[in-house]
């Protein structure tokens, strides 16, 4: 091979290499440009879906807060009814502009939360389980409480006291002592600060979550345990046999077998789970979302 041939070969080889480089780059670029292969359409769909989901989840939270209110009774039915009306109106409004079909139904089995109650006035004894009948844990490792109402109707015997004790994450204790030395007295002692007392004649209605008490029409307020302790809580009744009354407690936590038999607890959607179905021109999918209830 003479020198001129070699130069020609190198020249042709260089051109070939250049062609390969350019072709490869252009080919790779065309893959991204071609709509059938690129992720542009998919990315837009995903982004829109995420926005839509966030919007719907916000709405579900608003509806849950509005339908729950302060009344636990029939919340599931009210929420299901609200979901039906919401999806109907949502689909009517949105269908005219974008065509998104939404279906949302309450999924009770996937919801988080448990309710225990005593609806007829009797001693605040352990409903089931084993161990002490009068000193017992309502719930342990409680992350979130939505209702804790208690009505003390009677404390037979002077000087006797009935106690509800809540222990927070740090081990600090919030305590409520109910006595009836004549009039009824509800004395609340937070981990730090003075004891607050409500007193009056009649049934003592106490909302331990809101920090309100009403004894025979005389209202009062006290610092609630959620204000003064950090979760998780252990909620305990002491000397439950000393008083008679009713209570209702709904929360996310551990309701121990030492306090309850099967059937003593009931599911309650503290955090409702909602099965949602989205059907849009570009995507159809299902989601089960746990609804953060917006109390605002």
């Amino acid at each position, binding site marked *: 091979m003479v020198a001129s041939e070699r130069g020609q070969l190198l020249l042709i080889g260089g051109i070939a*290499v250049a062609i390969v*480089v350019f072709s490869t780059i252009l080919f790779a670029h065309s893959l991204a440009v071609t709509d059938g292969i690129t992720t542009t359409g998919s990315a837009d769909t995903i982004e829109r879906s995420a926005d839509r989901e966030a919007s*719907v989840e916000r*709405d579900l939270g608003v509806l849950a807060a*509005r339908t729950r209110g302060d009344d636990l009774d029939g919340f599931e039915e009210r929420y299901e009814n609200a979901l039906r009306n919401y999806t109907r109106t949502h689909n009517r*409004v949105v269908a005219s502009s974008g065509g998104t079909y939404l279906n949302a139904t309450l999924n009770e089995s996937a919801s988080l939360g448990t309710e225990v109650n005593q609806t007829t006035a009797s001693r605040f004894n352990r409903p089931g389980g084993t161990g002490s009948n009068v000193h017992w844990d309502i719930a342990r490792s409680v992350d979130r409480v939505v209702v804790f109402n208690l009505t003390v109707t009677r404390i037979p015997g002077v000087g006797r006291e009935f106690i509800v004790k809540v222990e927070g994450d740090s081990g600090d204790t919030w305590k409520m002592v109910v006595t009836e030395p004549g009039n009824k007295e509800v004395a609340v002692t937070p981990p730090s600060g003075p004891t607050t007392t409500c007193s009056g004649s009649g049934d003592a209605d106490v909302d331990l979550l809101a920090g309100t008490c009403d004894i025979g029409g005389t209202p009062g307020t006290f610092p609630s345990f959620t204000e003064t302790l950090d979760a998780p809580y252990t909620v305990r009744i002491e000397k439950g046999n000393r008083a008679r009354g009713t209570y209702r407690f709904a929360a996310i936590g551990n309701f121990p077998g030492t306090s309850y038999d099967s059937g003593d607890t009931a599911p309650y959607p503290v955090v409702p789970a909602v099965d949602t179905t989205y059907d849009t021109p570009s995507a159809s999918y299902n989601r089960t979302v746990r609804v953060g209830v917006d109390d605002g």
Partner: protein
Amino acid sequence: MRGQAYTLEGVLAAIVVVTATVYGLSAVDTGPFQTGTQQRIAALETRASDTLSLAAETGALHNATACYSVGTPTLNGNQTGSSTEFEMMLNRTFDRQGNQYNLYLSYWNSDSSARQTALVSQETGENVADRPADAAVATETVTLTDDMPARIGDCSGTGPPLSAVDGYFAPDAEPDSVVYNVVEVRLVVW
């Protein structure tokens, strides 16, 4: 000898090709091809969508939707000096950047075909007319319930419940339910 040289040349050429390919791929924009207009619309869409999402998260969008005042609307497309939080967001994000926008509030009304109210950022013929073809669109929904208070003044003060307000733009779509109406807020920017 010559065969060895050619082999070496081939290997070197392959290295050059691979290196150039890798370098070339990292140098070029492998994103989807977009014209200048498409890029502008995509950027506007992102801004519009983010603005609505942020307003929804902070509650400003809800307040704006539930805003009500007798006579003159509190939300009026004021380009500067608006005291309404949502409109201030629109001012900052679009008006000051020279963008125009229309805001459409769609709701359900079973008794009438009028199911939309519009707000324009500037009373120009272009704004009042249909949106231009190169506009960006973002939507968000707001659910209103019967007991939600109407917003008054700068849309942060609370007024009577929506179900008790006469003249509020959206009627009670579900009279037998806690749901008052669902309002789709559609922001069109160009």
